[in-house]
Structures are given as structure tokens and as C-alpha cells.
């Protein structure tokens, strides 16, 4: 029965969006942080493309890293009888209640990128191996710094487990080198503008810095812009995500390296796993799934496109 409905829905593609027709396709809700960050935009696009390919209708919603707004969006998905939610969440602790609410309403959640601090509630948590990736980035940073010099760390948003895990990965490498001295460590909340102004201030107080290691690419972009504006193209900057912006910066010789998270693939995998559960009641083999990251520098940056490395 469901397959007939789904096919009919796909044929009525443009009309099926509200789900009010009895022949509407099944709905998947994709919920992420703001698409201002190309990482989340790529996730949403990847999820949407795969969902449509598999015959679903999609609503793509943005929680702006606000747990209250996220909760309301979950209510929307429940009210619309979504068959699954694909989520990049607004806080590892705050999200547990929302995912549970959806589960109680019969809607499974497939988490991507950011995990929550609980198991057995989401159907999947597909996350990048941030620790492994951070070690790659830090090892490259240490090499570029010649194992010595003053540096700055920019940290991500506190409520996001990924901020802490990347910082830990960085420190587990960098702290082993006594001649590398961290002179400042601040959060710029994953935000490009905030990183720009914090970098300006930090640079004024610490003109002797040689490098900046950043928890993500948007902050690296902000930091790099501030450094260039101050005439400090010499400062070594390393980011994390693998965005097209940073790729371009690397190819121009500005930012030196980043670490690719397979964001597009994670989003698509989230939808694939939702589809398997919806259509065949097959749950993923394990809930928590780690996807390895890849170092990006001038050697391979040209092959990077929308969070995937082309062969």
C-alpha cells in the first residue's frame, strides 16, 4: 500500500508538499543549523537530494542553534506526520527531550554531525570522527609551525560536543610539544564575524603569534580575514570542515590546511538509513557510527567540492 502511495505522491510531486492529499508521498523532515554556514547548507542539500531520489517529500527546517526553536520544529514534524527526522542538533543535552518526544510519537530520528549525550533514543547518530580528524589537523599544524612558536586556538560553540572533542584532539597532539606555546584560547561560537573581531583583538594583544588553529572553517575564514587586514599573511591558519571557501583560500596560499568531514555523505547516509527503517523496518547495525575525516592541504584541495573529495 505504502509503495503505491509513495509512487503516486512522486508523480504528483509539486502538489504533494503539504501532505494533505491521501496520495501524498511520505515526508522526511530535515532540521539543521542555519544555512549561512555552507557546512549545514550542504547537509540539507545532500539530505534533500537523497530523500527526493528515494521518493519522499522533504521539508527543510532551520533551528538557528536555538533548542527552543528546535523543539517547535519537532512539533511541526510531528504535526505533519513526518515518517522520519534527519537532524543536526542544537545541543547535545538539550536535544535529548526533542528526540524522545518524536520517538514517542512514532517518528525515528537520524542524527548527523552532532551527537547527543544519550543512546537508545535516536535511531542513528552518524558523526564525523572528530578526534581522529582533529589529530590530523593538529599534526599538520605542528609540522607547519616547525614544532615551535606562539599560537592561538579558536574554539567552537560550547553546547556542541564537537567543539570540545576537536579541542581535545588538538591538545592531545600539540601539548606534547613544549616549544609550542598557546597564548590565547577563545570561543568564537563557530561564527565567521565573531572570529574576525576576536582575532583582531587577540592579535593586538599578542603580535608575536605564529599560528592559529581553529575548531572549524568559518572561524578560520574570519581569523584569516582579520590577519590579512592587519598585514599578517605570515600567520599559519588551520581549520576544520573542508568547506569550499577554505579550499579556495588554501589554493590561494592563505589558510594552510583543513580537515574534511564527509558532511554530504553523512546527510545522505542518514536519509538512506531512515528509508531502510521506513520501508523494510531495518534499523542501522549500530546507532552510533563514526565516519573518518581526511586532511586537506594544497596537495589535494583542488579535488574538494561541497564536502566531498572527488577521485
Amino acid at each position, binding site marked *: 500500500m505504502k509503495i503505491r502511495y509513495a509512487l503516486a505522491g512522486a508523480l504528483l510531486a509539486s502538489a504533494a508538499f503539504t501532505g494533505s492529499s491521501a496520495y501524498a508521498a511520505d515526508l522526511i523532515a530535515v532540521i539543521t543549523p542555519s544555512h549561512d554556514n555552507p557546512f549545514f547548507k550542504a547537509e540539507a542539500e545532500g539530505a534533500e537530494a537523497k530523500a527526493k531520489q528515494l521518493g519522499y517529500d522533504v521539508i527543510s527546517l532551520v533551528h538557528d542553534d536555538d533548542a527552543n526553536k528546535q523543539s517547535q520544529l519537532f512539533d511541526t514534524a510531528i504535526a505533519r506526520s513526518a515518517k522520519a527526522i534527519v537532524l543536526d542538533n542544537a545541543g547535545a543535552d538539550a536535544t535529548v527531550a526533542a528526540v524522545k518526544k518524536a520517538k514517542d510519537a512514532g517518528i525515528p530520528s537520524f542524527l548527523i554531525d552532532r551527537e547527543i549525550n544519550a543512546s537508545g533514543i535516536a535511531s542513528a547518530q552518524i558523526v564525523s570522527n572528530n578526534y581522529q580528524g582533529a589529530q590530523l589537523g593538529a599534526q599538520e599544524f605542528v609540522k607547519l609551525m616547525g614544532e615551535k612558536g606562539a599560537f592561538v586556538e579558536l574554539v567552537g560553540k560550547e553546547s556542541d560536543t564537537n567543539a570540545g*572533542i576537536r579541542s581535545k584532539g588538538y591538545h592531545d597532539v600539540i601539548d606534547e610539544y613544549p616549544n609550542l606555546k598557546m597564548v590565547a584560547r577563545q570561543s568564537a561560537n563557530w561564527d565567521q564575524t565573531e572570529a574576525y573581531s576576536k582575532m583582531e583583538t587577540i592579535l593586538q594583544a599578542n603580535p608575536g603569534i605564529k599560528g592559529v588553529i581553529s575548531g572549524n572553517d568559518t572561524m578560520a575564514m574570519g581569523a584569516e580575514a582579520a590577519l590579512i587586514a592587519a598585514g599578517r599573511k605570515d600567520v599559519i591558519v588551520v581549520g576544520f570542515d573542508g568547506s569550499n571557501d577554505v579550499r579556495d583560500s588554501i589554493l590561494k596560499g592563505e589558510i594552510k590546511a583543513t580537515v574534511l568531514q564527509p558532511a554530504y555523505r553523512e546527510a545522505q547516509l542518514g536519509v538512506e538509513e531512515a528509508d531502510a527503517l521506513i520501508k523494510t523496518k531495518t534499523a542501522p547495525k549500530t*546507532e552510533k557510527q563514526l565516519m573518518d575525516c581526511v586532511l586537506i592541504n594544497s596537495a589535494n584541495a583542488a579535488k574538494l567540492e561541497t564536502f566531498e573529495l572527488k577521485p
Partner: protein
Amino acid sequence: MRWVGCAMALSLGIVLAACRFIPTDQVSAIGAAGGTNGAAARDPDQMVASMWAAKVVPYFEKKAGPFLAARDLAATAPDQAGAKWGYRAKAEATPWTLMVRIEGTIVAADTESRAATIGVDASGEGKTDASVQIGPAMRGTAIRDALDFVSFGDFTNQIDFARFGKAFNTYVNHNTLEKLPRDDLVGRKVTLIGAYALDSSGEPPLVTPVEITIGPKP
């Protein structure tokens, strides 16, 4: 493994009802201090210490393959090498971690870097076939990643899982690697059992030892 995960999830769920929300950066600190509200509070160093001799070493001794054969098979048929002598948590975006037994001669040593390594010639050709970490700075999580009885799903989040991975390195460093000689290494015989993650770099594998013996100066 799923049952273990479910049981832990249930106990975590029961406890979560009584929890307050705390910022993520404090979570690890609390874990380190011995836990909170009776949840599955984990000291990763204690966990490793308690499983090392009883589970980890026997597992490695049983599963480790001969290094040269493993390396050569992995170069052409990684899934076969992985099935024989390795483990990976899942198929996609996760490299195989192989377990190997290496016997050879030390032909290179870098003890200047804190991430010290010895280059081991296992084939008798006089060059480094495997780069073995001897600490104190250790890279990667190969020991943890080799264990088929350890799962990311058993941990609250990546931070706890990473701390656990690091704890293996800390343990082998403190109990074995720190005691190794650091001078006049080139020329000495070495035998070891260890793990490494397969990659496509073309470089000699970076092996993390679980057991290692370095012979006397020649």
C-alpha cells in the same frame, strides 16, 4: 554488543531523568573526577588497566598476523587482510586496523621528536618496513580501534570514546615504552605485537605496540 548498548542506554535513561544539564566542557571533567549521580561513571585509565592483561593482550596475541604477509595482502586485498588479522567497526568511512607480529632489526630511530619512532626492517632489505611508536607522544587510537569488544556506542559521546582511546596509549607508554632504551637503538633486534590503521599514504605503517622487546646493543 547491541544488548550491552541497550542495557547501558536504559541505565543511562533512568539516570538522565534526574540529571541537570551541564555544559559539554564540564562533562569530561566530571567523568575524570569519578562520575556523577551514579551513572556509568568511567575512569578510562582504570578501565584500560583492568582489561589490559585479561583481555587486550590475549586478544592481540591470538589475532595478530605475521607483519610482512599482512602488509602485502593489505596492499592488494585490504578486506581479506582485515578479515584475517584486523577489525573495523563498520564498512563505510572506517579504515581496517590490523594486528601484527613484527620481528626485525632497528634501522632508524627518531628520539629527537617527542613522537619518537623506531624504523624496523622486517624483510632483511635494510630499510624501514614499519615505523613503531615508542612514545611519549603517541599518535592515533590503533589499540582501541583493533578491539572487537569495544564500541563507540558504549560511550556517552565522542569525548569519552576519545579519552578511552588515549588511555590505551598512556597505559602502554607508562608500563612498557618508557622502559625501553633510547640510545644506540640502530642495529638492535626487536620483536613486538601491535596495531596499525590501513591508509593509502604509501608510507611504512605507523604501528602502536602492545608488547615490545628490544635486544641489547650489537
